[in-house]
Each structure stands twice: as structure tokens, then as C-alpha cells.
């Protein structure tokens, strides 16, 4: 409860007046003779209990009367459930327009319901409130109510996934920092369980989190293509979605030409062979039959058809490199030739080289001079500390332990892998430098399963400066990376596969993600509960009526019990 005129509460001291008067009146009364004292004593004895009760009741009534009048003068604002204006509130409306909100359930888009509810919350704000709108793009939009209403109205299903726990955490911290009496976060989402599975919002005390419960009715079931990637002349398509769905036909197309079909159930992957293609970059897509969520029914993929690199082992390549090249040669990933040379000291000034430090430390200086002669601005320096490999460019070797290495020092070029934040794999022009020899005495890499793919990537892609085929979240499409006149890489965009599972989160999961104080409410309850924490009504009129009743009761007790 709060008060419009809190200073008036000092008047509560006046509530002690009846008690003080009672005490003051206990002064020595006048003394009079009265012969029939025995009658008086009898009457008093018979009435003593009634009089004590009367005095106590009158004292309470008078004290309460003064207290109630003072409280009424202070204009108390009491919490009410409906109909009253709320106190200034900091509000973040999270409208989850992630791809899953585009699902159509029973003929109605999920986002339509969320948008109406979000609009209701924004529309109920007043000029004294501070409001923000958070969409799936993660941008916290502040501003006037009308502008945010327009933003909510124009929201369409986005291609980005929204981490709800993280979003609530941000929103809660934002409203908590506002110096306003009310702090609320309204969550309008389809509450996918996959959106809440990771993380937990740290909601400070005093922040109310209200989440709109999923619409009652049947649970939406859906399947989508989680990934599609090309390997070994075939596209591997992984299907995801709600549990328990029957197998669905996956169609693979290159351009508009259908090249294959297969049946896949959620959680399983199928491989569809691709027809031989000419050298170059190719793109295709895998599609499912339309269902509740259309956005995940198609996923593009891209791959590069390139001739095998012609590789030879240079001096000091070592037995592990030679063996790996032999395997790649058998798999027709490389051919014999001198386009790429793997060794420890580059000789000559032309050709592509993959060089590793010489095994003999005495030859480091000579190797550095050879690099300098080729115009490579990098050199091997002192011995570095052991550590794991960190790389985003060459996935197969990430995390592999390096026990012995030289520090690579230099400028320019691309640092493709590091150890202890120091360059370990560097590309500079036509030369790729390694910080360690590809030998088990230096690193565990030669004994790791990813060693052959790593050597494959070194000689076929990295040394020629081609980027890997990547995958990213976004509108299903393919983007190529161009360097000069060459295409050096490509990225296939598609939905985050977690968006395909439309199974709603359980209340327990919601509580775990948003905190125990979060309220999961139906549409009607949400409308009633929003701003309820700060909704206030002036109770002074009620108190005045109460004061009137107390006064009437006091009058009645004072006269009728006389």
C-alpha cells in the first residue's frame, strides 16, 4: 500500500487521544454525599462487567475512528485486481516472433495470437510507464507506446531463433534498473521447450515475469530438415521435429532438377547420392512436404567440385604426412605432382608450400631465412608452451593437444589455429606455416581421427586460400564468398533446427527457466494480472464510509449502553 499524502500519517498520533483522555479523566473526581450508597454499590457490582466492556469498546471505536480518518486523509492506494490505474511501471514486452511462431495451428498462425496479446499489454501502458519491445532479433526497442504498437503489429515470423531464458534475463535486468514502482516482463511466445532448455533467467526480486500460456488444444506436431551437407558424392539430410512423427519423404533437388528421394523420420539422417558434376560450386536443396511450420520444410546446401590437388612430400615432411597423403591419394583426393609441397624448409620461390618447423633446432634460423626469401613475413621464434588447438577453420583438429611447438611471429596473413592464444597455423600467400611438426613427438594430431581430413583440408583448401562451406542461421539461401574473380567459399543459410520441435514447455520447465516467481497465465488471466502488482485504487472514500460506520457504532454504543 502507498499513500498520496504520506505526511498526513503523522496524524496517526492523534489516535492516542482517546486513551490519553481516558487517562487524564482519571483525576480525582468531586466528592458528594449520597445516602443510598448501598443501592449504588449493588448497581455498580451488577454492571461492572458491562461497563468494562463498554469502556473498552468505546476506546477501541474512538481510536479506530481517528486512525481511519487520518488514513483517509493520507489517501491510501491499495492494490486491486481490475479496473484501476496502475502505478508507473517499467515493462519489457517480449514478442517471440522466431520461425516457430509462423506455425499454423488449427488454421490460425501462432504469431497472430501472440501479437494480439502483446498489443494488449502495450496498449494498457500509460504515459508514466517506460516500455520496451524485444523481438526475436534481440534488439531492445524503446520508445513511445504508439511506435511500439506499430512495431508489434508489423512483426512477422523472423528467421532467427530467440533464446527465451536469455531474453527474460536481459529484460528483467533492464526493468530492475528503472526507478519506477512497478517492474514487469511480459513474455508472449509459443514457449517451445527447445527455447527454454538451455539457461536460466536470473530474475531480481521485485520483477514480475508473466508468460502467456500456450493455447489450449492439440499439441502441434512438425518435422523439418535440420541439416543438409554434401560429403563423398552424396547429400546427407538430417530430419528433426516433434517426437513420434511418421517417416516423411525428403526430396533433393539441384536447381529445379530432382535428383533423389528418401524417407526419413525425425532424429534420423538419410543420404541421397548426387550425380557427378563438373568442377565448380554447386547448390541444391532438400525439401519436405508442407506441414504446420513451412519455414523448416526446405534447406539449401552447397558444395564445391574441385580437381584433386597435386601434392608431393618435400624434405622433412615426416612419415605421418607421407602416410596421410598416401591415403588421400588412394581416395583420389590428391594426385602426385608439385602444385603443393609439404616439407619443413621451403625451397624455391614459387609453388604452394605447407611447411612445418625443422626437427633440428639448429635449422630454425635457416628455415626462417628461407621464408623471408620467399617474402613470407612470418618466422618461427622460441619454443612455446603446450596446449590444445583452438580453431574454427579446421574443425577436425580442434581440441587436439600440442606438446611441443615454436611460436610463430609475424604480420599479415590469416591465423587459422592457435595454441594458448598464440598463432599455430598461419596462411601467408601461398605458404601455410605450422607451429609444430606433424609428428606424435610434437602433437597428438597424427594419431587423431581428424588427421587425414586435416591434411586433406591443408592441401586441397587451406593452401589455395579457399574457405570452407559453412552453415548459418537465416533465410534459407546460399551465399558465395568471392575473392577477385574466384569463388573461395560459400555459406548455406537455414533455420536453427531447434525451431522445428513445436512441443511446448511444461510449466515446470517454464518455472525452471524464468524462475519460480514467474506466472504462466491463460489469455484471460494474463489480461487480469498484467500490472496487477502496481494497480492501485484510492481507498479514502471507502475509509470515510468506514469512519461513518464507526462513528454511528460509537454513537449507538455510547447511547444504547448508557
Amino acid at each position: 500500500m502507498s499513500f498520496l499524502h504520506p505526511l498526513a500519517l503523522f496524524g496517526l498520533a492523534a489516535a492516542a487521544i482517546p486513551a490519553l483522555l481516558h487517562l487524564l479523566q482519571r483525576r480525582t473526581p468531586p466528592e458528594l454525599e449520597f445516602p443510598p450508597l448501598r443501592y449504588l454499590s449493588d448497581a455498580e457490582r451488577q454492571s461492572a462487567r458491562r461497563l468494562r466492556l463498554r469502556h473498552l469498546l468505546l476506546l477501541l471505536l474512538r481510536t479506530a475512528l481517528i486512525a481511519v480518518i487520518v488514513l483517509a486523509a493520507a489517501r491510501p492506494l491499495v492494490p486491486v485486481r481490475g479496473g484501476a490505474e496502475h502505478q508507473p511501471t517499467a515493462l519489457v514486452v517480449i514478442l517471440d516472433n522466431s520461425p516457430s511462431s509462423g506455425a499454423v495451428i488449427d488454421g490460425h498462425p501462432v504469431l497472430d495470437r501472440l501479437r494480439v496479446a502483446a498489443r494488449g499489454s502495450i496498449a494498457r501502458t500509460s504515459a508514466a510507464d517506460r516500455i520496451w519491445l524485444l523481438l526475436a532479433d534481440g534488439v531492445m526497442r524503446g520508445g513511445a507506446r504508439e511506435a511500439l504498437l506499430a512495431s508489434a503489429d508489423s512483426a512477422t515470423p523472423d528467421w532467427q531463433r530467440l533464446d527465451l531464458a536469455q531474453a527474460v534475463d536481459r529484460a528483467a535486468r533492464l526493468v530492475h534498473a528503472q526507478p519506477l514502482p512497478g517492474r514487469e516482463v511480459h513474455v508472449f511466445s509459443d514457449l517451445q521447450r527447445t527455447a527454454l532448455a538451455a539457461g536460466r533467467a536470473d530474475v531480481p526480486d521485485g520483477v514480475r515475469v508473466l508468460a502467456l500460456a500456450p493455447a489450449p488444444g492439440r499439441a502441434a506436431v512438425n518435422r523439418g530438415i535440420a541439416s543438409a551437407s554434401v560429403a563423398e558424392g552424396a547429400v546427407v539430410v538430417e530430419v528433426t521435429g516433434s517426437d513420434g512423427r511418421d517417416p516423411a519423404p525428403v526430396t533433393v533437388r539441384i536447381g529445379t532438377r530432382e535428383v533423389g528421394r528418401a524417407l526419413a523420420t525425425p532424429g534420423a539422417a538419410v543420404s541421397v547420392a548426387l550425380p557427378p558434376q563438373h568442377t565448380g560450386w554447386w547448390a541444391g536443396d532438400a525439401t519436405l512436404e508442407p506441414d504446420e511450420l513451412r519455414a523448416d520444410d526446405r534447406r539449401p546446401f552447397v558444395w564445391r567440385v574441385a580437381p584433386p590437388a597435386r601434392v608431393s612430400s618435400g624434405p622433412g615432411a615426416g612419415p605421418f604426412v607421407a602416410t596421410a597423403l598416401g591415403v588421400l591419394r588412394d581416395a583420389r583426393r590428391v594426385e602426385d605432382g608439385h602444385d603443393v609441397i609439404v616439407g619443413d624448409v621451403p625451397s624455391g620461390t614459387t609453388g604452394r608450400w605447407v611447411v612445418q618447423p625443422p626437427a633440428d633446432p639448429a635449422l630454425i634460423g635457416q628455415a626462417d631465412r628461407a621464408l623471408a626469401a620467399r617474402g613470407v613475413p612470418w618466422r618461427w621464434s622460441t619454443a612455446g608452451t603446450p596446449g590444445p588447438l583452438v580453431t574454427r577453420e579446421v574443425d577436425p583438429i580442434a581440441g587436439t593437444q600440442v606438446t611441443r611447438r615454436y611460436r610463430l611471429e609475424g604480420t599479415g596473413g590469416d591465423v587459422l589455429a592457435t595454441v594458448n592464444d598464440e598463432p599455430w597455423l598461419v596462411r601467408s600467400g601461398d605458404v601455410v606455416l605450422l607451429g609444430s611438426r606433424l609428428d606424435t613427438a610434437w602433437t597428438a594430431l597424427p594419431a587423431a581421427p581428424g588427421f587425414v581430413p586435416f591434411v586433406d583440408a591443408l592441401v586441397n583448401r587451406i593452401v589455395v586460400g579457399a574457405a570452407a562451406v559453412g552453415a548459418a542461421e537465416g533465410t534459407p539461401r546460399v551465399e558465395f564468398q568471392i575473392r577477385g574473380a574466384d569463388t573461395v567459399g560459400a555459406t548455406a543459410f537455414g533455420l536453427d533446427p531447434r525451431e522445428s520441435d513445436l512441443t511446448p514447455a511444461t510449466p515446470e520447465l517454464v518455472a525452471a527457466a524464468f524462475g519460480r516467481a514467474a506466472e504462466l497465465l491463460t489469455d484471460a488471466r494474463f489480461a487480469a494480472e498484467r500490472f496487477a502488482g502496481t494497480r492501485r485504487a484510492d481507498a479514502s472514500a471507502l475509509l470515510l464510509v468506514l469512519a461513518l460506520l464507526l462513528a454511528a457504532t460509537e454513537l449507538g454504543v455510547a447511547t444504547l449502553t448508557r
Partner: protein
Amino acid sequence: MARTIVPPLASATVPTPTRVDLLDPAEVARLGGIEIVAEGVVEGFLSGLHRSPFRGFSVEFTEHRAYQPGDELRYLDWRILARSDRLFIKQFEEETNLRAMILVDASRSMAWRGAPERLTKRAYADRLAAALALILLRQRDATGLVTFDEEVRQVIPARVKAGQWTRLVRGLLDTPDGRGTAAHAALQRLTALLARRGLVVLVSDLLFDRELALTALRYLRHRGHQVIVFHLMDPAEVELAGPPEVRFTDPESPATVVVRPRELARAYADTVQREVAAWRTACRRHGIAYHHVQTDLPFGLALRLLT
């Protein structure tokens, strides 16, 4: 306190343009001393009557009345009993030599009045007793007086000779206001004084132990006396009033009580009513005539209670 007695001369009768016995007692008291007031009252009172209100022991039958416990069985009308199985007492014309004894309570509580414009209970009792004595003496009835508080203060034997009334009035005036009330002891002594059956009139505020007093009155009744009790109360004793809070003290004892009259008025009035009803019931049970009189009641109306 010095008091003067004015003899009840025929010429000293009070001019009565109106019935003095029906005036306010306090106004009547301002006309003069007890004698003047009593004579005026008696004159007015008797002018309204054709015969004595007192019935004694006569041979001339007058009427019947219902039997009351204590009545002598020899006056029971056996014929009516045989015919109707109901008990009636035969009453006769007044006895010419009725012996009457008037008992006046002179205790401290009787010297109290609730308002300055009213008579004290004692003053009212004196005047009522004087008037009563005058009536009796004029009927040639032997009339005596006893005044008492804790002790018997004055005893004037019943006589009918000339000057008796003056002695009675002097007896009243010579009795100062006493302290406590011991009616029981006074009444017991009175029983020894009243050898012959007669009339006993007690004028008191009855602020003493009811059972003890009733024991004595009952004894008198059993001795064959006709007993009349005038229970005097000041109007302020009937309805409690006063300042918001007051300490009331008992004039006859050290007892005190602090009350708020407005709060206790109703309960007090109920208590007084119960007390009066208790006296009335107890007296009726023993054949004692009981009259509750407030001191603002005109003397004539008080005397008329006896008719």
C-alpha cells in the same frame, strides 16, 4: 441548632387561600415552622375527608376487607368463610382510644436532600409526623413519638392530654441529626414500650438492613399492632444524576464509590425499583402497610395514602 416552637393556636392557623396540603412540600415549609405547616396541612387534609382514615377496634361494624396474615382470627367473618370459603376480616368504626406511636428516623442519611429547593428527608419526615400526630390527637387518640438513629433518641409516651402535640413537636425539634441507623434496636425497644395494641407509624428512608428491620416490624405485627411504613426517598435518590464522574460517600459510614452517573443511571434505577418492590412485598406478606413517598410529594397526598 436552636429551634422555636410556635403553639398550635386556633388563631395561628395558616391562611389557606388554597389547599396547603396539596402544595409542594418545600413551598409549604416556607410558610413557617413545623406546627404551622402541620396545622395547615391537617386543616386542608381533613376538609377533604368526612371521617377518620384510621380504623381501630370498635364495636360498630363498618365493612369487610380481605384477610392478611397477622390479622386476629377473632375478627374473621366465619359466616362468609362458611358460605364462600374465603377469608374476610370485619372492620369496625374507629376506636375512640387508639394508641398510636410515630417512629421517626433521625439518622444522618435522613438529613440529606438532592437539591437545595427541596426539603431534607428529615424535615419532610418531621412535618409529616407532626401532621399525622395532629390528626390523631384531634381524634382523641393517644399519640406518642420515638426518634432514633443508632440509638433511640427521644421517647414521648402516647398521651391524649392537652399539650401533647406541642411535646411531640418539641421532641422532633430537639432530636438532632444522628449518625448511623440501627432501626432494629430502636424497634425492639419500642416493642417494650408498646404494651397495648395500637398503631405504629414508621417514617424512615429504610437505609438499613431490611431483614433485621422486618423482624422487628413483624414482631410488632404479631403483638397485634397495626403497622404503617412511610419509605421516604429524595427524588435524586430515585434517579441517579450528577457530574460526569463523582466519588459518592456514605454519610453514615466511610464507604465511598466512584461512578459515572450517566453510565450507571439505568442500573441504579433498576436497583432502586427492586429494593422498593422488595420492601413492598415483604411488608404485604406480613400485613404491614407500606408507602413509598418521595419528598416532593405534597403532604396531603402522602397522608391520603393512609385512607
